[in-house]
């Protein structure tokens, strides 16, 4: 069972002040799948992601990642855990004072004892893996386009060859061609690097193209299923989401 389930959330409750975001939320993410998390604005998609990776404190409930409870970890255990996953924030969140290559080298320098030359080589490999041209390695984030910044951010999140990556709206703000290319990139990487992907998104094209299962945040809880099954559900928000004009256009392809 443990081999099959990579993230297991039970009875999660998160709240800010009196504002309850999630209440008694359960979620399982299986090894090797691409899970898309959707939900209306303010339903706490990004909050869920931030809670699982430890940037938010959960008020109640347990979060197990790789079979260990994240909520009860010491700092040292958490650091070890962080090496096994990568996170891509919305606009890449690259360190603006460092070049792309240096950004990718940060986790390598921090968590490994590799020699400098090896780290340099590895950074170049990652730059190539995410489809950036080699000369992008020595550019600063401000010199890159939005799409390239996201690719560079992805390269940094893959620096330590994690088993699990969290993506926060990876295709938001990209043009349709760039978004489709990024979708393909995620799919390719997921297959070649054997990744599990936890992806918060609004992009119906991404959902249709690359997600194995979809988690819908409604009423402070989560419903997970394949797209076909979700479309049969009789919840007003789900109906509107998957049967709206945009959804129909995305699903036709």
């Amino acid at each position, binding site marked *: 069972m443990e081999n099959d389930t990579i993230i297991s959330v039970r009875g999660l409750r998160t709240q800010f002040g009196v504002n309850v975001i999630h209440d008694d939320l359960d979620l399982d993410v299986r090894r090797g799948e691409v899970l898309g998390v959707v939900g209306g604005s303010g339903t706490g998609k990004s909050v869920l992601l931030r809670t699982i990776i430890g940037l938010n404190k959960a008020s109640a409930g347990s979060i197990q990642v790789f079979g260990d409870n994240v909520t009860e970890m010491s700092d040292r255990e958490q650091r070890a855990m962080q090496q096994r996953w990568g996170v891509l*924030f919305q606009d890449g969140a690259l360190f*603006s004072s460092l070049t792309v290559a240096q950004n990718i080298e940060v986790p390598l320098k921090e968590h490994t004892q590799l020699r400098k030359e090896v780290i340099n080589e590895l950074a170049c490999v990652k730059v190539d893996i995410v489809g950036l041209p080699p000369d992008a390695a020595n550019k600063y984030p401000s010199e890159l386009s939005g799409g390239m910044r996201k690719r560079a951010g992805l390269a940094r999140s893959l620096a330590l060859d994690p088993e699990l990556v969290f993506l926060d709206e990876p295709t938001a703000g990209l043009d349709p061609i760039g978004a489709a290319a990024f979708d393909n990139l995620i799919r390719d990487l997921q297959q070649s690097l054997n990744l599990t992907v936890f992806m918060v998104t609004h992009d119906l094209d991404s959902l249709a193209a690359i997600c194995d299962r979809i988690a819908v945040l409604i009423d402070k809880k989560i419903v997970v299923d394949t797209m076909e099954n979700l479309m049969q559900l009789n919840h007003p928000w789900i109906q509107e989401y998957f049967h709206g004009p945009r959804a129909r256009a995305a699903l036709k392809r």
Partner: protein
Amino acid sequence: MAAAAGWFKTRTFGDRFIIEAGGRWNVQTVEAIEGKLRGIGAEARASAASGPALIDVAGLDALDAAGAWLITRTRLGLAAVGMDAAVEGAKPSHGALLERVEKALAHEELPPQVDHIFLRFVSAVGKAQFDVFVLARSLLSFFGLVLIVFGRVMLRPGQLRLTATVYRMQSVGLNALPIVGLLSFLIGVVVAFQGADQLAQFGAEIFTVNLLGVSILRELGVLLTAILIAGRSGSAFTAQIGTMKVNQEIDALETIGLDPIEVLVIPRIIALMIMLPVLVFYADLMGLLGGMVMATTVLDISLNTFLKQLQSGVNLTTFAVGMVKAPVFAFLIALVGCFEGFNVSGSAESVGQKTTASVVEGIFLVIVFDAAFSILFSILGI
């Protein structure tokens, strides 16, 4: 002109009061019509008409949302004085607009809840007071957090980010030399001149040198440098860390497993604690130099006399009293600068606000601690 402006005419036809609208009723012309339409309710009542009123809009050349609003408001105004009114003759495109605006105005307006001005004043004062305590408490807890990490780094110096520290030392120290030097030199000139002006009345012009030496070395050198650095580097720290916060770089640091305090705060604090004393020493020298230039050129005190008098007027303690404050001020400025940086939330606006707050709080704390030092030294008799 006639075609461009909007107009209306009123007349009574049988028992009906008729308002005939024409021309262009749009956002440019509405202002002129609105004033004239204000008295329409009274005019309608004063007329002989007793039946429902009619607003005839067939003659309109142009109508936009502002014009439609005015027509609807006129209709509602007539209804309010007891005269039902109908809008008639609208062109199809105007009709749709009128309907839409009518729907928007149909929402009942809730009167905004306004507290009494006295109540608002008192609650604003109370909130400001409370906010100060909240700020002080969170600054104190940040101080504690920094101390813990500071201790950890001191125990294991391998954790210190040497490159970052040296880089900060250059930007806060070396790069500040010209402005600190110039400012101190000018302050030396001013103190020497003002002192001589007053002391000359007692024939004690020579004591200008003592005044200069003591005031620069004990107080002015360190205080002015600290204030300058609070404005120059404290604000820079806040803006740098704040922008990283907005850009989610701080989150990224944490998910990579790096401690933002260790990576961002400790190098800045150490760099400033090393460089501020150096800058103060430099400021002391430049201040004395400024005073010396003033004394020897304008005040007829020879260089020899100046140096002799300075030697007798100040001693190592005078110098040390100034210097000992420098690392403390440096710590305060860097702490507040970083603290406010982490307080930035979400927007570019917030970066600006916190940067201002960081400079104000930094200078405030520097002066408060300077006063505390003065009291301490006077108790110790130094």
